């Protein structure tokens, strides 16, 4: 019974990232941070009110995606990990949207100015 001989194939693959790739992702994150700062100093309200926040969040989401996919190796992870990561944002979205659909639709009155 030599069923464990082929153990090498059981490993989760981990040889995808190299040092230049890590540094590349790092540079993307640094550029994103600088971009966030300068985008915040420009008044984008002429597009629509709150455009600055949207831009800031878009950059933050891009940075987060880079960190998750490559630093946290989600890109090469089993489906279950993908599911966990995506599901957590799905639950967050439910929490945000259900909370806000309450607060944003209250008439002025007892519970809300």
């Amino acid at each position, binding site marked *: *019974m*030599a069923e*464990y*001989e082929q*153990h090498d*194939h*059981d*490993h*989760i693959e*981990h*040889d995808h*990232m190299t*040092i230049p790739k*890590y540094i590349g*992702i*790092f540079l993307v*994150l*640094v550029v994103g*941070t600088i971009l*966030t*700062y300068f985008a*915040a*100093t*420009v*008044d*984008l*309200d002429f597009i629509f009110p709150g455009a*600055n*926040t949207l831009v*800031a*969040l878009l*950059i*933050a989401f891009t*940075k*987060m995606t880079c*960190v*998750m996919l*490559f*630093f*946290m*190796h989600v890109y090469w*992870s*089993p489906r*279950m*990990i993908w599911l*966990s*990561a995506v*599901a*957590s*944002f799905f*639950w*967050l979205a439910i*929490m*945000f949207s259900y909370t*806000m659909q309450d*607060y*944003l639709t209250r008439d*002025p009155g007892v519970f*809300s*100015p």
Partner: protein
Amino acid sequence: MSSHSETGKFHYHEPGLQHQFEDMGQQEESVSIGMWMFLVQEIMFFGGLFTAYLVFRSKYPMAFAAGSNHLDAFWGGLNTLVLIVSSLTMALTVYYAQKSNRNMQVIMILLTMAFGATFLGVKTIEYRDKFNHGLVPVQGWNKRIKAETNAEHETKPCWEVDHNAPAIEHPNPRGEFQWTDCSLVKKAQDEGYLTNAEKIGYFSNGEIDANKFRDKVRIFYYLYFVMTGLHALHMIVGLALMTWLLIVAWRGSFSEDYYMPVEMSGLYWHFVDIVWIFLFPLLYLLGRHFMHGG
């Protein structure tokens, strides 16, 4: 490292395989899924605070912008960069663990710890500044500044603030939360974009009420301290984790065959980094585009 008994002598055992798992693949997958479940609940945990932020900011955007503009975006930005570098060194720790390179692992863990400590040091500078300027939203937790006996009373309306003037040290004998600048309320009123909540929340008898505005800015500082404080607590836990990792890596326990503790600590560290990636623009930069009402 596991030390399981020699049961099946015909079975090959990986040196890092714990006895309850069939093989390394199953072990690694179980470990990562466990860690991800923890991270998912951490996301929900911080998510509650982000929800509070969302609710209050949608009601009182001007108070949030005013409070945010008083935070120092330089320190916040520097800390973002420090955390990103620490994330890189953490990722490289995992890389060197997978390459069974003990010395580089130890160096990278030490660098990660150094950057983590730098982050907390900068945070201390910021918190001290808030303490000195009466911006901690709890009475008595601010620096107590004695009232001068013949202090001139401020007669100007609270929205006429000269932002180029040197900062005045307001007397604060009881260490209360202080806020005197309503210029953003005036601006929003003049340009007509106060929210319904703001039209009630900042005004008394049709006049801007400095005290009512202060209480809304205070909500921002509550959220600022709870969110960054909780994040800093995670950094401290992360540093403890790194200390343990350093000891185990120093002994040369991690190799190509067994590196999951490094990888899992890395997931935690990157998660804390991601939280900061969102905290930085949401807390430090949200009102920068109309800084000081100008």
